C-alpha cells in the first residue's frame, strides 16, 4: 500500500480524538537539531470542521482486538485497515515538521496482540525521533489501557505529553460498551501521576535527569453516548484535575459511526453540549470555580441558553454589584462580560487612577453583560434596569456554535 493511502486511512481513524493541543511543554531546540516546543502550543491549520490541526494525529494501526461499541476501528467493523512502519512515521513527522505543517506527532493506536506489544511500537517511533533524528518537537503518546508501568515510564521519557482516554464517564457505561475495565484505565493514570511527581522531585535535586512528560497527562471522554448528567461529567473532570493533576480533560461530542442497539440514535453530534462542558471546564481551570458551583444537584445539566458563568452569577445576585475600583480580583473574574485579560487589566489600570465605564469599555469589558453586576465609583451604568427579564435577555448567548472550536489554544496577555 502506498504511504499516501496509509496516511489517509490512519489519519481518518484518529480523527475522533478531540485533543490536538501542543501546549504545556517548553522543550528547547538544540544547535543542529530540529524542533522545539512552544509553551502555549501552536495551531498550524484548521480543518474544514473548524478544528485546529496542531499535531500529526494518526494511529499506528487501525487493526484492533477489541470491539468497543462507539469505535470505528472495532474488530467487527468491515473497514480498510493499515499499519505504519516505524520508519514511515519517523519520515512523515520529520518532513512535515520541517515544512512547518505541524508541531509534532500525536500517536495512538488500535490494539494489536496485547497492550504492551502495541505500546512498544509507539515507544519505538518516539525513541527513534528523539535519539536518531535529533527531534525536539512535540510528541504526545497515547497510553494503551492495560500497558505496564515499565513501558509507561519509558514512554514518558520521550513524550511531552501522555494520555489515557477514560472514554466514558462511568464504570457502568464502560462495561456496557467496551471490553476495557475501569481498572485498566485508572491504573496507568495513577502510574503516570506518580511518575510525574517523582520526576519533578528528583529533578529538583539533580537537574541532569531527563524530563518525564513535561506537558503532563490528559484524558478524553465521549459526551452523549451514555446517559450520565453534566454534573457527573463536571465532577469527574474536577477529580481528574485534583487527584491526577491532569493538564486537560477533553470532551468529544458523540458521533455515531456504527449502528449498535446499545448506542443512542442521534442525527447530529451534541455540539452545544460539548461547548457548554468546555466552558464549565474553563471556569474550573482559570476562574477558580468549583464543580458544585457550576452544576448543582437540583440542576444537574448545564443550561442551553446561558453560559455557566452567567448562570452562576444570576443565581448569586446577592453578591453583586461589585465596585470595580475596589473589588478583589477573584470576584472581578466572576463577573459575566469580564474575561481574564480584562480582569488583569482592571487590576493594573486602577493603580493609575479610578476607572469609569468608558475606561472599562476600552479595556475590553463587554458592558452589555457586565453592567448588571458592577458599579464604577459607586454608580451603576446609566439606564441599567435590573429585572429578571432584562438580565436574562442580556445573558442569552446568540451563537454558541461559532465559538465551539478553539480549545487547543490558551494564551494570556497581561497588557
Amino acid at each position: 500500500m502506498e504511504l499516501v493511502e496509509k496516511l489517509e486511512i490512519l489519519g481518518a481513524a484518529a480523527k475522533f480524538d478531540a485533543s490536538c493541543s501542543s501546549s504545556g511543554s517548553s522543550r528547547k531546540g538544540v544547535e543542529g537539531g530540529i524542533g522545539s516546543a512552544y509553551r502555549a502550543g501552536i495551531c498550524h491549520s484548521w480543518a474544514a470542521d473548524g478544528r485546529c490541526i496542531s499535531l500529526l494525529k494518526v494511529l499506528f494501526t487501525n487493526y484492533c482486538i477489541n470491539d468497543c461499541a462507539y469505535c470505528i476501528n472495532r474488530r467487527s467493523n468491515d473497514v480498510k485497515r493499515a499499519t505504519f512502519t516505524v520508519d514511515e512515521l519517523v519520515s512523515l513527522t520529520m518532513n512535515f515538521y520541517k515544512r512547518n505543517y505541524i508541531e509534532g506527532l500525536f500517536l495512538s493506536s488500535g490494539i494489536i496482540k496485547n497492550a504492551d506489544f502495541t505500546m512498544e511500537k509507539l515507544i519505538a517511533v518516539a525513541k527513534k525521533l528523539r535519539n536518531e533524528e535529533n527531534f525536539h518537537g512535540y510528541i504526545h503518546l497515547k497510553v494503551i489501557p492495560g500497558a505496564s508501568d515499565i513501558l509507561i515510564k519509558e514512554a514518558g521519557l520521550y513524550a511531552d505529553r501522555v494520555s489515557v482516554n477514560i472514554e466514558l464517564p462511568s464504570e457502568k457505561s464502560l462495561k456496557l460498551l467496551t471490553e476495557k475495565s475501569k481498572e485498566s484505565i485508572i491504573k496507568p493514570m495513577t502510574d503516570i501521576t506518580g511518575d510525574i511527581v517523582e520526576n519533578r522531585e528528583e529533578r529538583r535535586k539533580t537537574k541532569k535527569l531527563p524530563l518525564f512528560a513535561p506537558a503532563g497527562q490528559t484524558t478524553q471522554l465521549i459526551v452523549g453516548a451514555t446517559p450520565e448528567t453534566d454534573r457527573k461529567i463536571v465532577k469527574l473532570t474536577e477529580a481528574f484535575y485534583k487527584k491526577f493533576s491532569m493538564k486537560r480533560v477533553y470532551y468529544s461530542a458523540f458521533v455515531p459511526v456504527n449502528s449498535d442497539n446499545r448506542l443512542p440514535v442521534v442525527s447530529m453530534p451534541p455540539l452545544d453540549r460539548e461547548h457548554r462542558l468546555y466552558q464549565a471546564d474553563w471556569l474550573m481551570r482559570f476562574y477558580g470555580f468549583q464543580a458544585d458551583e457550576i452544576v448543582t444537584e437540583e440542576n444537574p445539566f448545564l443550561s442551553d441558553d446561558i453560559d455557566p458563568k452567567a448562570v452562576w452569577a444570576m443565581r448569586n445576585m446577592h453578591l453583586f454589584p461589585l465596585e470595580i475600583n475596589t473589588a478583589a480580583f477573584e470576584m472581578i473574574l466572576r463577573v459575566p462580560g469580564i474575561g481574564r485579560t480584562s480582569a488583569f487589566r482592571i487590576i493594573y489600570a486602577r493603580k493609575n487612577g479610578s476607572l469609569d465605564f468608558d475606561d472599562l469599555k476600552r479595556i475590553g469589558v463587554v458592558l452589555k453583560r457586565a453592567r448588571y453586576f458592577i458599579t464604577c465609583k459607586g454608580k451603576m451604568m446609566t439606564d441599567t434596569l435590573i429585572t429578571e427579564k432584562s438580565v436574562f435577555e442580556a445573558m442569552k448567548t446568540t451563537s454558541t456554535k461559532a465559538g465551539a472550536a478553539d480549545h487547543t489554544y490558551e494564551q494570556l496577555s497581561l497588557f
Partner: protein
Amino acid sequence: MIFLYDGTFEGFLSAVFDAFTCKEDVAIEKREGWQPQFFTETTELETSPEKAERVVNKLLSICGRRGFSAIVQIFLSEEENAETYTFHLVKSVMKYGSKAFSRFQDEKITRAMEFRKRVSKECDKILGILRFTELANGVFYAPFEPDHNILPLITGHFYERLSGCCWMIHDIRRGNAIYHSKGKMENVEFVDEMTSHLNMADLLGKSENEDDFAKMWRGYFKTIAIETRINPKLQRQFMPQRYWKYMTEKKNG
C-alpha cells in the same frame, strides 16, 4: 516641528533621541511620501546608531524586555500614524515607567496597545501557518505576505526550531528576506527590486520529494475533518482567506 526620518526603526529611535533634546513639541514622520505643508517646519534627520542605542538602553532600563518589545511591535505594525502612537507611548514610558502600558485611561495608549495586539496576533498566526517548501538546492523556503512588518519578530522562533536546516523566510510584499545557515542569520540582498518580490520556488524549482510530501499533507488535511461537523465559517474565522495563498493545503482551491 516635524522630524522626518528614514523609515527604519533605528532611524525612528534616533529621531526620538533628538525629539527629547528639542525644546519644541515634535512630531515624527517618515521622509518617504511626506507631503510638504504650509506653516509646518520640518527637519530631515540623519540616522544615528549611537543615539538609537542610547534610547534602546534607556527604554530597556525603564520597562524591561517585555515593555521594549511591545514598543517595537507597535512601530512594526505599520498602522496609520504608527510613529505618532509609538512616540506617544515612549514619552509616557519615560514619564510613568512600566505603568504606562496599562494606562487605559489614555485613549492614544489604548490605541497603541490595540496595534500591538494585532501584531502579536498576526505573529502567533504566522508561526503556525507559514509553510516551507524544499527547493531544489535543499533550502527550506517560506514566502508570505503579512499585514504587519513582522519578519524580524518571527525569525528567532525558527532560528531555534530549524537549527539543523538551511532556510529562508521571505516577505514578498515588502521585499525583505532572512536567510539561515548553520547558526547564522542574514538579510538577503536581492539583485534588484523586482526580484525581491518574486517567489523563489518558481525561480529556483523544488526538490524531488517536495510534491509528494505536499500531496500527503493535503490528503491528511482533508481526511482529518469530521463530516458531521463541517463548518467553513469557523474555519475561515481562524484561518483568514488572505493567508491561503501560500498555504500548501489551501492554495489551488
